[in-house]
């Protein structure tokens, strides 16, 4: 049953064209009998038709030219292409590499601190029983990591590679942070839009 309290919502639904036939008839019946609801319907309907009666304003004739000139500039400007690469390729790739560097030698580092101990990661019964075959596979991978680390440690390569990559990552992070601080809006635009 429609009364003046809930008629407002129904009038809006009527203006949206979302009322079914029965609800529409019920609303119009109420509106016929109620002066204040009739006035509301008329006024809101008039406001909507005045708004929709506004003609679209045409953009300047040069709009397409100007936008496409900027698009071309962005597509070909090496500076902008480089920025895109930096954010979309280089940064994620560095992050992935950094993560890998952390994960790969971690098992080996454990081994380094327990010098003189067994060079393989011990297979515990608990691991085997809980994780089964996949646990053993992981164990195998960890042992491979230890072997790789041993080889690199012997040749002294890991220290050099680690220092170089660490320095690169720190420089990259500092650069991105600085660039972000200089223009946060630009960073947001690059990352979100």
């Amino acid at each position: 049953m429609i009364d003046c309290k809930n008629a407002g919502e129904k009038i809006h639904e009527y203006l949206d064209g979302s009322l079914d036939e029965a609800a529409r008839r019920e609303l119009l019946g109420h509106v016929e009998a109620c002066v204040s609801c009739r006035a509301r319907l008329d006024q809101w309907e008039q406001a909507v038709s005045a708004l929709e009666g506004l003609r679209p304003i045409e953009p300047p004739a040069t709009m397409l030219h100007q936008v496409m000139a900027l698009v071309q500039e962005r597509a070909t400007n090496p500076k902008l292409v480089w920025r895109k690469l930096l954010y979309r390729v280089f940064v994620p790739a560095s992050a992935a590499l950094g993560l890998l560097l952390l994960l790969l030698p971690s098992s080996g580092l454990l081994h380094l601190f327990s010098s003189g101990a067994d060079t393989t990661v011990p297979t515990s019964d608990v691991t085997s029983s809980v994780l089964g075959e996949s646990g053993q596979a992981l164990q195998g991978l960890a042992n491979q990591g230890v072997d790789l680390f041993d080889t690199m440690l012997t040749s002294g390569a890991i220290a050099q590679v680690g220092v170089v990559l660490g320095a690169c990552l720190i420089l990259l992070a500092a650069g991105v942070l600085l660039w972000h601080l200089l223009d946060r809006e630009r960073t947001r635009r690059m990352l979100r839009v």
Partner: protein
Amino acid sequence: MVSEALGLAGWRLPSLALAGKGDTPNDGVLEPDEVWVERARRHPDAFAELVRRFQSRIYSLTYRMTGNREDARDLTQDAFIRAYDGLSTFRPNGRFSPWLYRIAVNLCLNHLRRRREETDLGEIEYSLRSGTLEEVVENREMEKTVARAILSMPTHYRSPLLLRHISGLSYEEMTQVLDMPLGTVKTRLHRARELLSARLRLEGVEGIG
């Protein structure tokens, strides 16, 4: 011909087809916007078709949001450039138009926030309608009043009102553009209509429509 080489049948390079184009493509075959998004990802020139399709709609929206022609031009340009920059992040199953409207609305809201709602009510432009001189003058006055009433509304009411009644978006599209639940969108739109109606009555507009 480069466009043929790019597989862009029925589409001309922007340098040959820029001036005076409306929102419809030149050959009447309307491919989905998302097809052009895919093309524009590979060939920046193809973005021209999306600009051609949406420039009037986005310009109308930004103009009605700001009430200023210069701002509307800058915001429209910015919206397209940001859309172009973000093409790689555009979801393959998403729809282009709500996404573009969302960029445009957010730009307008940021701009108005920066400008602290100082909308220039003096510089309102009106499109001419055909008819007698009296009708034209009357319509201009009416449009002026309506435009002023829109600009005097808070932006959180202005944007749903314009998206619905100027841009013609559905409620579903509006939820995507405004990033709000359906209930909130409806409540704001309804309140905005009531507010507009009240302001028009204050301006002495009777018997409109």
